[in-house]
């Protein structure tokens, strides 16, 4: 099962017949297992890693750190679920250290992101303070380097 997941994580477009070839399972088995993985929510979504800078479609990303004051009846999950509802929020994590939650936010401009943080996030009752770090450049995303890698210098023939 993990082997199928590993292959799909590397390449979600891989055909079940090829996954069957790579893993030694039958194609039918691969299809059944993928369906099970999708149904159980282990596979959440199939996604591409895109270098938007190259497209010329410039998004502005920011990492927002939040200090949270927990209410009597609300925990981190409650506030996290609420913040997760905003489309601008790309990721949200509970973290250790000086802050409690770390968000990645995407907008069309710095102003866009700044207004979103001020108006939608900082105004929430449980949010005690925010620190905004604008992303200047992304070098690696989801394990994929976004810069040119040197080509292999292996000899074409070797012992």
């Amino acid at each position, binding site marked *: 099962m993990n082997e199928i997941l590993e292959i799909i994580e590397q390449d979600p477009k891989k055909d079940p017949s090829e996954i069957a070839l790579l893993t030694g399972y039958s194609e039918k088995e691969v299809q059944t297992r993928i369906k099970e993985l999708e149904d159980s929510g282990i596979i959440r979504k199939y996604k591409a890693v895109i270098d938007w800078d190259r497209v010329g479609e410039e998004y502005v990303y920011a990492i927002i750190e939040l200090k949270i004051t927990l209410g009597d009846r609300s925990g981190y999950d409650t506030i996290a679920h609420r913040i997760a509802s905003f489309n601008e929020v790309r990721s949200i994590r509970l973290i250790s250290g000086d802050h409690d939650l770390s968000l990645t936010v995407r907008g069309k401009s710095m102003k866009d992101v700044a207004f979103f943080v001020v108006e939608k996030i900082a105004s929430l009752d449980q949010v005690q303070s925010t620190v905004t770090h604008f992303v200047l450049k992304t070098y690696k995303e989801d394990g994929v380097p976004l810069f040119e890698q040197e080509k292999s210098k292996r000899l*074409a023939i070797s012992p």
Partner: protein
Amino acid sequence: MTDVKKFLSDKIKTVPPSGIRKYFDMVIGMDDVISLGVGEPDFVTPWHIREACIYSLEKGHTSYTSNSGLIELREAISDSFHNDYGVDYNPDDQILVTTGVSEAADLALRALVNPGDEVILHEPCYVSYKPSIILSGGTPVPVSTTRDNEFRVTGEQIEAAITDRTKAIILSYPNNPTGAVMQKQDLEEVADVVVEHDLLVISDEVYDKLTYNGKHTCFSSLNGMEDRTILLNGLSKSHAMTGLRVGYAMGPPGLISAMLLIHQYTMLCAPITAQMGAIEALRNGEAEMQAMVREYNRRRRLFVTGLNRLGLDCFEPRGAFYAFPSVKSTGMTSSQFAEELLHQQKVAVVPGEVFGQSGDGFLRCSYASSLDELKTALEKIEEFLS
């Protein structure tokens, strides 16, 4: 102009150039070649190992090490064999760190062989064994293995090749170029012959970690073989460290000290930077190594199935990263096939005969290339065959 060749030793004149060289020369200068001719991982050495090398340089570790290698490295090697195979080698006097496994093989042969001694080796096999035997003054005695027996050598074959001049046997499983492995009972057969005829075994197990569908059997773990085996291994293949050149030999103290004697007057010691990287690889490199092996396994399935679909009969290789398909059905020799394939489709492979007479009619295709490259290579081979 002085004829410098007249200065060459008689011994060097008897060593033929590597058959691989010819194909290397052909490929040089060609663009866009898809190469299945490489005998090394296509992965880069994992970052934490490279970092250990960099860190050692930053700290100024640029000195000689003990001739035997850093004691920390010998301890890490000893621990790994204890954990993996239950065999125990004393880091003080039973392990010698060398500059790659090739040096270890050369040292073993030079330490053992007297002029006229015979060394049995199974073919097809790695290209350097035969020349190394000749350079040590010995006579190579090849034993052919066959496709029908999945390129495993039998105790019976070895026994038939033994004469009163036989000194040692070279075993190399998982095998380069065939990908063949020997099961425990196959090796026990060989061990019986070794005891009966009072021989030594040089067992090159550099591909031990690249074993699929089962567990590798370490030759020295067999009954009575610990005292009769020089076990060779290294980190080139398992941890994608070919250029760092870290190999090692393990065996009875009397043999290792003889090898050390030659090593200390020639290579002196393996480079300290590479040894530092090797310590990190052995202590913390298991996860990356396993990930690479899983990836090779996938490529193996895809590539071998693809070759068989194209009608190039290929038994299932169970180790290393080579497929060894037969081209006999095409009516071409392996050299013709390899040369034509290179010129027509720009796919580089190595003809099997380079690895010994019994390799004729086969190709060594390395699947240490990306899945996309392997798929393209299969398409090009299909086009070549049609």
